[in-house]
């Protein structure tokens, strides 16, 4: 049987190859065809010849040849002359080429009248095609003129005409949905057509017309589920719509019955395989499907596994593969069938069978399975291999005891030929296993060491070397890796050599026993002909020499200095061109300060997210200035930086407090610390003949006086001309209170005029002040996002007593997405697990948000949105936090926004 297949498919291949040779169009040239197209302009048309030329043009365009605008226009205009011919075959080609070549909206419109005539012609072929083309090119203005005809055509007794109108309805929905909606009774009528295609198109259109009306859809589906449709494609659509309705309705609490399940089950007995698959697929994807519900679907699919048609086998195994992901136990019966499929002629089927087996397999069957796979691996392509390796990784994590055999398998395939993607997947897989299964570490590292002995991919070699440096020193016998690593220094390109040097250094610093040997090896690297390699070697040599003989500590990765402050201080250093050496301690100090603090992660995250979103690094710059000042060191690390107003959260521009075009420019940035808040004012003088000295900003809390107590004001000596100078005001925040405030700000300074004759400033100045705009401090300033991958887990750790629930009305909104965006914008928290993605047309949605309140307190939010009639959006907000007052704060923030 299988042989027969192979033979016939081989025959077909040959045929198609021959067909290629004899294709009348093979190798035709655009220029020549365009020449030929002149025959369209002849006054005595040769219909057959014109048809052939159009076919050639269509062929070219389908082959990817494109026509220039001039060419397209020329062809189009001459094609329009072909409307004079009444040859129906030629006319059909004319319709096709018009759709294909459509030069520009302006020009294409000139065939409108001709098409409208055809639309009313007596020839069905003309009518159906004219409808399709016309709807393709029509604009809103003309639509009104042809609507009447289209509506009639929907119920035309000719199936092609009716289908054409229905399909055009689909397209027109995007252009003008109102018009199409007026057809609903005609479309309903078409739904009962005897022609399957018409039925299919009618159902699709009817559903789209009604799709925003849940009740109507549910009614339609209920009605259709009672009487099966003639068209199996339409029946598939019904199944899909049913799936949607099931998703939107709740399981019956009392009986636990799912609505429409009987219908789905009955579809599993349909005479069309397409319908059966559709029903099985929907059942498999049901939310929280039970084993009992799955059983009938799995049984049917199992039957298909032994079908003689590859397409059925493929569809069945693919569906079962899905089952295996969530309910592997419900398909144990299929294992035997699937095992025989490993040798299936069709590699896609075989791969799916294997990956499915890897998911359903029991610990006891792994050995047998791996043997089968090994022989199979050699004759499939890389993209299939990748899938298999990924499945093996999952399996290994599931059955860590089996790591030996699985790791062996991986090392074997690693040694075989393969492209980058494939090799990378294997290496990633080993890395993952090494890190998550302690017992597998040594074996994994050994395999990887052997791999880099003969690895053609620089990226992978570097990655492995890094891992060896990281994990190797803590293994039982670190010495054995040294040889592998040093070999790389001798044999490889500069990038790999540099990575190898780092790895070596790590061994040297962590292991007292190996240090002397490593030093010798590094010494040799000093003669490397690459700068980077030499630099690294020299650096590590000097670091290693400073470590006391008996100590073992890992070499500090120079990159753990926070990059931004490092860069800022280096730049400052270069500008000052001082004689003293650059002192890393400055950064080190800041860094240690951060490292010793539990908030570090929040802060680090915040920086990185800012970095991504910032175009102008105003905030970043301000942050660097703050961290490089000694005064605020005792406040700990910065939790969040924001510009002054809550309405511009995430904006990374500092906010101007002065109007443009004044004599001085002042911007403000807020820095939130664990218990403090620092306002950083950047001031700049814009007038040349004055000097502003002793500059400070006086802040007066108008609101929030009970929360914020002023700690210090740091004035600025002189306001520089054209550049920014900094002055600061810091406040301490009372804990447990709602951190909201409004500050009135006044700029104070002493102004001295410059004497134009001498160019010297006057000795006596006068004091002056200038009112700045108010600064707002809001709760959002104290919140940062903290995306979680396992929301539920963290949610459950937070005390339920601290849970606060509230209902809000968000007014009418265009979509749930818009409403969600608004709320997330106010809260400034991060959405988790992709829950910010809302299904199109969803009427309800739940989003999970997570964040930190200053001080490292987790805050989690479950946000349920629902859209009622007339698009009014209601929101239920469930908040859990470590402290009840924080949960309250979130609610206040939302209700006051």
């Amino acid at each position, binding site marked *: 049987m299988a042989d027969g297949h192979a033979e016939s498919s081989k025959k077909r291949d040959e045929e198609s190859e021959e067909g290629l040779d004899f294709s009348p169009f093979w190798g035709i040239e655009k220029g020549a065809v365009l020449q030929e197209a002149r025959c369209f*302009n*002849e*006054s*005595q048309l040769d219909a057959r010849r014109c048809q052939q030329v159009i076919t050639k043009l269509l062929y070219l365009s389908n082959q990817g040849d494109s026509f220039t605008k001039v060419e397209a226009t020329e062809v189009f*205009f001459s094609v*329009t*002359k072909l*409307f*004079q011919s*009444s040859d129906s075959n030629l006319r059909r080609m004319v319709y096709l080429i018009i759709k294909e070549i459509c030069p520009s909206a302006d020009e294409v*419109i*000139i*065939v*409108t*009248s*001709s098409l*409208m*005539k055809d639309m009313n012609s007596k020839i069905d072929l003309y009518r159906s095609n004219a409808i399709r083309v016309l709807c393709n090119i029509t604009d809103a203005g*003309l639509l009104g*003129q042809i609507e009447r005809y289209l509506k009639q055509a929907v119920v035309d007794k000719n199936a092609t005409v009716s289908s054409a109108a229905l399909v055009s309805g689909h397209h027109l929905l995007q252009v003008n949905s109102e018009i199409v909606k007026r057809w609903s009774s005609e479309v309903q009528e078409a739904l009962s057509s005897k022609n399957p295609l018409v039925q299919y198109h009618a159902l699709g259109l009817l559903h789209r017309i009604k799709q925003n009306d849940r009740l109507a859809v549910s009614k339609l589906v209920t009605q259709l589920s009672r009487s099966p449709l003639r068209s199996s494609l339409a029946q598939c659509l019904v199944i899909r719509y049913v799936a949607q309705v099931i998703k939107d309705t709740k399981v019956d609490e009392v009986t636990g019955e799912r609505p429409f399940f009987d219908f789905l089950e009955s579809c599993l007995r349909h005479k069309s395989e397409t319908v059966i698959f559709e029903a099985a697929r929907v059942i498999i994807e049901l939310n929280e499907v039970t084993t009992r519900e799955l059983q009938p679907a799995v049984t049917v699919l199992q039957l298909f596994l032994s079908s003689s048609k590859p397409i059925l086998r493929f569809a069945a195994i693919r569906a079962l593969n899905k089952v295996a992901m969530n309910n592997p136990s419900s398909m144990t019966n299929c294992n035997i069938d699937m095992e025989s499929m490993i040798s299936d002629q069709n590699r896609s089927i075989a791969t799916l069978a294997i990956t499915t087996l890897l998911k359903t397999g029991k610990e006891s069957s792994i050995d047998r399975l791996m043997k089968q796979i090994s022989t199979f691996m050699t004759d499939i392509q890389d993209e299939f291999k990748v899938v298999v390796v990924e499945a093996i990784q999952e399996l290994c994590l599931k059955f860590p005891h089996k790591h030996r055999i699985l790791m062996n398998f991986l090392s074997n395939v690693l040694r075989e030929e393969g492209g980058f993607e494939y090799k990378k997947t294997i290496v990633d897989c080993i890395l993952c296993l090494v890190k998550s299964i302690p017992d597998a570490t040594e074996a994994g590292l050994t395999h990887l060491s052997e791999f880099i002995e003969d690895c053609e991919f620089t990226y992978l070699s570097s990655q492995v070397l890094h891992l060896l440096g990281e994990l190797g020193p803590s293994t039982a016998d670190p010495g054995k890796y040294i040889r592998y690593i040093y070999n790389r220094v001798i044999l490889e390109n500069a990038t790999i050599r540099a990575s190898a040097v780092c790895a070596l250094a790590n061994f040297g610093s962590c292991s007292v026993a190996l240090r002397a040997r490593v030093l010798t090896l590094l010494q040799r690297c000093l003669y490397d002909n690459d700068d980077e390699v030499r630099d690294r070697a020299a650096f590590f040599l000097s670091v290693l020499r400073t470590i006391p003989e008996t100590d073992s500590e890992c070499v500090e990765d120079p990159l753990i200095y926070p990059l931004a402050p490092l860069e800022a201080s280096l730049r400052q250093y270069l500008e000052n061109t001082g004689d003293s050496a650059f002192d890393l301690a400055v950064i080190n100090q800041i860094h240690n300060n951060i490292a010793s603090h539990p908030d570090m992660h929040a802060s680090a995250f915040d920086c990185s997210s800012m970095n991504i979103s910032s175009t102008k690094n105003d905030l970043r710059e301000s942050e660097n200035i703050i961290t490089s000042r000694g005064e605020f060191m005792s406040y700990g690390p910065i939790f969040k930086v924001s510009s002054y107003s809550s309405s511009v959260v995430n904006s990374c521009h500092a906010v101007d407090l002065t109007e443009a075009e004044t004599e001085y420019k002042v911007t403000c940035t807020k820095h939130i610390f664990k218990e403090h808040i620092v306002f950083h004012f950047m001031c700049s003088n814009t007038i040349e003949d004055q000097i502003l000295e002793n500059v400070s900003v006086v802040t007066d809390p108008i609101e929030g006086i009970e929360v914020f107590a002023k700690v210090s004001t740091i004035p600025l000596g002189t306001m520089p001309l054209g550049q920014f100078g900094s002055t600061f005001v810091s406040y301490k925040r009372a804990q447990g209170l709602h951190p909201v405030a409004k500050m009135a700000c006044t700029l104070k300074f002493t102004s001295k005029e410059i004497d134009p004759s001498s160019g010297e400033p006057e000795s006596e100045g006068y004091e002056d002040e200038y009112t700045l705009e108010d600064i707002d401090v809001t709760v959002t300033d104290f919140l940062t996002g903290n995306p979680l991958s396992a929301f539920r887990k963290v949610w459950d750790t937070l005390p339920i007593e601290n849970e606060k629930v509230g209902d809000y009305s968000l007014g009418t909104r265009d979509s749930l997405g818009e409403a969600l965006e608004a709320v997330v914008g106010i809260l400034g928290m991060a959405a988790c697990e992709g829950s910010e993605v809302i299904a199109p047309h969803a009427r309800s949605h739940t989003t999970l948000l997570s964040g930190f309140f200053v001080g490292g307190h987790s805050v989690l939010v479950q946000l349920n949105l629902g859209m009622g009639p007339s698009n009014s959006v209601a929101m239920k907000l469930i908040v859990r936090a470590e402290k009840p007052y924080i949960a309250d704060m979130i609610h206040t923030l939302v209700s006051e926004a």
Partner: protein
Amino acid sequence: MGYFSWFFGLMGKRKTKVNILIVGLDNSGKTSIIERMKLQSGKVPKGGMPQEVTPTVGFSVDEFSKGSLSFTVFDMSGAGRYRNLWERHFREAAAVVFVVDSADKLRLCVAKDELDAMLESSELLGKPFLVFANKMDLPTALSPVDVAQGLSLDEIEAHPWQIVPSNALDGSGLQEGLDWLANFLNK
């Protein structure tokens, strides 16, 4: 003359196909004239004039026959934005029918400009021009003589031409005009 055309000639079926361009400003009555001619040649069975005529977008092609001639008419839209489309059809046209709304005195000069441009085209050189002074029934209509004068027809030298008063609503004048054309084209 080949064997086949002799055969068809014998059967009285073979008709000479001629392409005709029908142009003129928008709303002058081109489409109405064609519909009426089709009616007269018996192409539209019964039911009289088909509904109301809508302004033509771009162009549309029609056919009817008259004696031994089979006319393929390109009914061009007169709307300003489509007028440059006319010239794309000059080459294949055997004759031009130019329709003027005799009651539209205001735009007679525009019609004249369009006509002059066509008369100058080398692709139409020597081809016959039939001018319909249409909408004669309207009380405000100019006389054919006035229309001819407004269009300076008597200055035309390189083309045979004829002006015929017409009314597309009842068909009067159309027959006469067509006879002149047929006569010319049969030669």
